[in-house]
């Protein structure tokens, strides 16, 4: 029976597809998109076998199953390619494979006719392979490898339309920004390795929890790792790359920049959570970072006009939320939100893609009234929006509640802040769907040409919408029991003690009220007269509006930092190198030598008495020195 021992096949199949496509895609029919889709489907199917195997083995003493082989061995330094399957990985994997498959299918429509159609699927296959590896990695090094590989896929896909300068710049920005975080991750990984002597995650965790690693040391290592997570998950202050990453094709945004890669940071924290829990204070730090990101991004999202950017800030905001969850050690809620968020955010993006595909613009100001033209898109989009706003029934509601409950205990200020966050989420989500689908159409030309997308695009929308509707119920014991994991997700994914989902009325009520309030308020602003009311609202305080509109000027700040700081340093070093090291040090030595020669040659003045004098001086000097040595 194929089971968890075959987990390595999950990344291996798409990797094979990647290799095949890289070499021969241009010789395959349809540029080989079916190879990629087939591979992902195969992995997807295989996933259920793995899942089933896991379910059957699940028990109190079960931690996970590891398979793999040694890749490199230097002396006593061993690098392994190993795959470890446990519930945390399974949850993440579910998100990865489902969204990946949907995006693959969707892309056959969305990317149709693109000149680099085959290349798109090639990179997607690589991404799927890398992302599965990241999830399944049993050691930190392999995790890092996969981490970098998904980064490069992200780079390649953001810059997919590299003929656009902005896309090229965005790709670079994304990669370099995350790379800075990766530096931290790598340092953290190596620091842990140095103490523990292995990269194996379970061993490292065991060492950390059993106190083998000194607290200071562990804190430093984990802080470095946290940098990596922050970079990948675009947490403040690394968040700037994610909105720009929207330069990539929309399916990419859905897959990489909403559902999977960007949550890798959260996944990493979840993986390492037992270690993080050892150090008190780190949790608070993570919560603060997450909170800043969550609230800040939600505020910014309220004032954006690019449909994809709104969703991007929404993603940022949710990522911050998940960070808060991790900081509060609410693993169950965090991972669950990760899963549901993957579905509804991918759905949002794909829906937005569908809209963009139809009207060929991303400015919400040019949209409006599309519900008539694109009913399926509209329907699924609204489901996703409501899930995002965390309204009951939709999956976001359950996962958010789980997190809120986790945070509530002993972190009241954060809990209150999160309620505000829910409110803000309601505002921007409502604004998004109001502006896009309702109200009058503001650009008639585009409106006329709008049409519903082809089935290969709407099908994934529908599938994801269904998942968005249903996934939340997995939290419930009864649903879990029906599917084979009694206790629901709470007893599936946990840190120390399984904790079944208990519906808490206070939390649910508070959160729902906040969300609903936000949605309704916004609907009021945009209903009927269109955005006029909203504009007036913004005019109450133009400075604040400008501040939000311009994303708190963080990008500008960074740009200035790069221009004057980094490039300035670079120019300074280059100047130093050219004028001090080279022109003074190297050329100077040469010139000094030459100058000495030039000076000395005039001793040879052509006059015979001088020559004789030189000889006599030589004689006298030698004689005097010699005689003084003897006396």
């Amino acid at each position, binding site marked *: 029976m194929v089971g968890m021992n075959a987990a390595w096949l999950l990344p291996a199949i798409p990797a094979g597809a990647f290799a095949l496509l890289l070499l021969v895609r241009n010789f395959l029919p349809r540029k080989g998109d079916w190879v990629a889709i087939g591979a992902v489907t195969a992995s997807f199917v295989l996933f259920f076998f793995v899942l089933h195997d896991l379910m059957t083995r699940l028990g109190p003493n079960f931690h996970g199953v590891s398979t793999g082989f040694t890749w490199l061995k230097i002396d006593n330094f061993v690098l392994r390619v190993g795959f470890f399957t446990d519930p945390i990985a399974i949850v993440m994997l579910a998100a990865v494979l489902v969204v990946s498959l949907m995006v693959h299918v969707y892309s056959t429509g969305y990317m149709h006719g693109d000149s680099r159609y085959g290349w798109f699927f090639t990179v997607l296959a690589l991404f799927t392979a890398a992302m599965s590896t990241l999830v399944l990695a049993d050691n930190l090094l392999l995790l890092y490898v996969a981490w970098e590989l998904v980064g490069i896929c992200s780079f390649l896909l953001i810059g997919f339309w590299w003929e656009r300068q902005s896309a090229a710049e965005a790709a670079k920005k994304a990669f370099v920004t995350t790379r800075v975080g990766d530096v931290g991750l790598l340092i953290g990984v190596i620091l842990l390795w140095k103490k523990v002597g292995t990269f194996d995650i379970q061993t490292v965790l065991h060492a950390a929890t059993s106190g083998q690693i000194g607290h200071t040391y562990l804190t430093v290592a984990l802080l470095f790792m946290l940098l990596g997570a922050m970079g990948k998950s675009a947490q403040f202050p690394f968040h700037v790359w994610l909105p720009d990453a929207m330069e990539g094709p929309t399916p990419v945004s859905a897959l990489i920049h909403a559902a999977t890669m960007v949550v890798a940071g959260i996944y990493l924290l979840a993986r390492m959570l037992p270690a993080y829990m050892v150090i008190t204070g780190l949790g608070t730090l993570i919560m603060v970072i997450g909170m800043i990101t969550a609230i800040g991004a939600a505020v910014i999202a309220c004032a954006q006009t690019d449909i994809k950017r709104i969703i991007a800030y929404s993603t940022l905001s949710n990522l911050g939320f998940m960070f808060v969850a991790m900081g509060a050690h609410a693993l169950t809620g965090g991972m669950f939100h990760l899963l549901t968020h993957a579905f509804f955010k991918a759905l949002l993006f794909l829906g937005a893609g569908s809209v963009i595909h139809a009207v060929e613009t991303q400015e919400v100001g040019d949209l409006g009234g599309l519900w008539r033209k694109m009913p399926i898109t509209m329907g699924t989009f609204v489901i996703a929006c409501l899930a995002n706003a965390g309204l009951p029934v939709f999956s976001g509601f359950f996962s958010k509640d789980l997190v809120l409950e986790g945070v509530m205990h002993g972190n009241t200020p954060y809990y209150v802040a999160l309620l505000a966050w829910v409110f803000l989420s309601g505002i921007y989500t409502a604004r998004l769907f109001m502006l896009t689908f309702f109200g009058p159409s503001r650009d008639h030309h585009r409106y006329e040409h709008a049409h519903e997308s082809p089935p290969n695009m709407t099908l994934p929308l529908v599938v994801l919408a269904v998942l968005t509707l249903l996934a939340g119920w997995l939290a419930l014991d009864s649903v879990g029991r029906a599917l084979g994991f009694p206790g629901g997700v709470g007893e599936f994914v946990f840190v120390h003690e399984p904790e079944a989902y208990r519906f808490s009325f206070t939390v649910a009520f508070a959160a729902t009220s906040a969300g609903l309030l936000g949605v309704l308020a916004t609907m009021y602003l945009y209903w009927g007269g269109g955005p006029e009311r909203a504009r007036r609202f913004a005019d109450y305080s133009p400075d604040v509006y400008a501040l939000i509109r311009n994303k708190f000027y963080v990008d500008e700040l960074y740009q200035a930092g790069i221009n004057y700081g980094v490039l300035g340093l670079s120019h300074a070093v280059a100047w130093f190198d050219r004028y001090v090291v080279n022109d003074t040090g190297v050329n100077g030595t040469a010139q000094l030598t030459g100058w000495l020669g030039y000076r000395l040659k005039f001793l*040879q003045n052509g006059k015979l008495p001088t020559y004789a004098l*030189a*000889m006599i001086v030589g*004689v006298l000097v*030698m004689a005097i020195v*010699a005689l003084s040595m*003897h006396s």
Partner: protein
Amino acid sequence: MNHYEVLAPELVLLGLAFALVTLELLFPQLRKDLVAYLTAASAIGVLVASAFFANRSDSFKDLIQLDNYTTFFRILFLGTAALLAIASAHLVRDKLSNAGEYYGLLLLGVIGATYMAAASELLTAYIALELLNFTLYVLVSFDRKDPRSGEAGLKYILLSAFASALLLFGISFIFGVTGTTSYAGIRHALEAGIGEYRGTLVVGLVLLLTGLGFKVAAVPFHMWTPDAYEGAPLPVTAYISIVAKAAGFALFLRLFSQAFMPVISDWRWMVALLAALTMVFGNLIALQQVNIKRLLAYSSISQVGYMLIAIAALSHDSATALLLHLGGYAITNLAAFIAIIAFYNATGGEEIRDFRGLAERHAGLAMTLTIALFSLAGMPLFAGFMTKFILFQAAAQHGLLWLSAFGVVTSMISLYYYLMVIRQMYVLKPRDGDGRLRVPLLTSAVLVVLALGIFFVGIWPTPLFRAAASATRLLF
């Protein structure tokens, strides 16, 4: 037993020299290049004959020593003279008069040089030295049309006389302290101890070093060299730089190893000082030269510095290394000078910039000159690297690592000025109107042989090395 056969090669050479002069007097119509080839042939003849002296040890009344050391230098000088005679053929025919005397003097100089190597007594050494000097005075000022030639001769003769006086004054003190002029006698006297006369001896040594330093062109006694090199006709420049220099070192080495070893601590630092100064000055000033002859003059001064290292580190090892280096240096310098002579014959240019684009005007000439210059700079594959390496290593072995370091660093500087010539030849393109050059067949053949010789010494130095080792064995 009078051992006159010890003198045989030089007597034959003397006869040949007179024969050449007479020949030209009797047959003024004779083709002048023919005289050159006759000279070369006679020199090679004597060379081959004297090769039979190999491994023979004999002496003429303890004045002239015949041993492998003498034979080594005799072959070196004769070979150089023969090749330079061939190289002079066209130049002497076209630019100089009195060819017979020129070639006769060339051979006479070899006699003086050989006896400098062979002398085992100070008076003999002095006379041999003066014999070589006299031929050089005449040869340097041989070009009557070129005012530079006369000036060079004047400076050379006056300064040389001055240096001879210093040398003799020094010899007189040494004679005064030791009571003898024979090398072995001096050594005995020094080993027996000289007590209170040490100061006198040291002054004598200083003066002796001055005289020898002048001969081999060590800084600060070198100042005649660039002028003499530049003023003299090209083959004569080559002759000075090879024969005169090697002869100076031959005398230097035999004298100091056989006579002054007991007081090595008294003079070692002086030689080391001279070596260091010579290397530094020679290389630095060479950086600023524009005339190829003058460049090679300074280059040869710096080579003297390297060779002095071996004297400072005097031992069998370093002496062997010195002879090896001299051999490689002779071949290299011959290649360089003969290439330059060929270039000069074809173009009349002797400034470095005249060599512009030579690689496209005559690839072979450019390549030979490049090989020679790289060898002088001490680059591997070529003789210079191998011989210099062994020379410096030998010196380092005998406690003079710092001086070897000096040598290494300054010889790296020297690469610059050699590269400047190579740059003209290869990097720059010929000026408009500069066509291909013609080089006589025989000269080409000589150049090929010399280039191969440079490679040979650079890659397989064992034969020369063994010859040098056996030549110096009896000195210690």
